């Protein structure tokens, strides 16, 4: 694979993997992806990292509807940017307005500076460039969960 599309990867020690697993074990993770293979992939990887509670949604509207249930307000949102009906940026804005403590990670191919700045201005906590790997998800989750690398 060419370097231009390869995701940035960080080598994680076994100790670090255990730290992330401990940090994410009791967290509710909401995966928002309109593409089913990507949704299943992210959910599977996050479960593999130690999350016991993973919920998925097909777009921003579906995600917001789920968060109306107080038992489904997530600790961490992993969200695609480009989706039909309601995109990731609008979902970010709405979720942060209702639940400021929710950690929001945007997963996207939009890696140009303007997109990153725009996401930050809307309060994004983390960023995962697509195509992603287990390592790139780990790195971003570690950051938002306060696990030092």
């Amino acid at each position, binding site marked *: 694979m060419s370097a231009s599309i390869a995701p940035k990867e960080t080598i994680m020690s076994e100790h670090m993997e255990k730290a992330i697993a401990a940090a994410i074990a009791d967290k509710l993770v909401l995966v928002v992806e309109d593409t089913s293979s990507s949704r299943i992939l992210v959910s599977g990887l996050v479960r*593999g990292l130690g999350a016991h509670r993973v919920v998925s949604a097909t777009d921003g509207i579906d995600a917001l509807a789920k968060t109306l249930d107080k038992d489904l307000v997530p600790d961490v949102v992993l969200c695609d940017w*480009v989706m039909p009906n309601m995109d990731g940026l609008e979902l970010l804005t709405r979720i942060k307005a209702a639940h400021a403590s929710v950690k929001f990670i945007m997963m996207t191919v939009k890696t140009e500076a303007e997109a990153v700045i725009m996401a930050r201005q809307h309060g994004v906590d983390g960023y995962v460039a*697509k195509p992603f790997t287990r390592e790139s998800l780990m790195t971003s989750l570690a950051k938002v969960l306060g696990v030092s690398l």
Partner: protein
Amino acid sequence: MQDWRQAPVVDTSVTDQLRQDLDEADFALVHDALADDIRGRLAELSGALAQDDGDTARRAIHSLKGAALNLGHLRLGLLCGHLNHCALAGDWDSVRGGWDDLVASGQSSLAALGHAGLAFDGDSSIVRA
């Protein structure tokens, strides 16, 4: 960026890594889902192009690009990347011109996934499973 024409259908290093990172059930499930995504997004794109619906077409290409590259379907993903670039520039002639290559790449990916390919009619505007 690598030329999609030179790219392998599947980057097996990605597949091998996913086999380690996912449990067996999720590994099978995610690949079956990719087959559905390929069929669904190509059908969506075909319809959008027929109706000059640029937003839906762009989103279909973008989604297929991400799904393909995440699972190491490099040729399809890179071709979608090229078409996405054309679509963002408003170059719909190039997008339509790439349709046959996109169908061929989709069929190659489906074959690699062990799924039956797609059949298209002569004007490439209707997708049949």
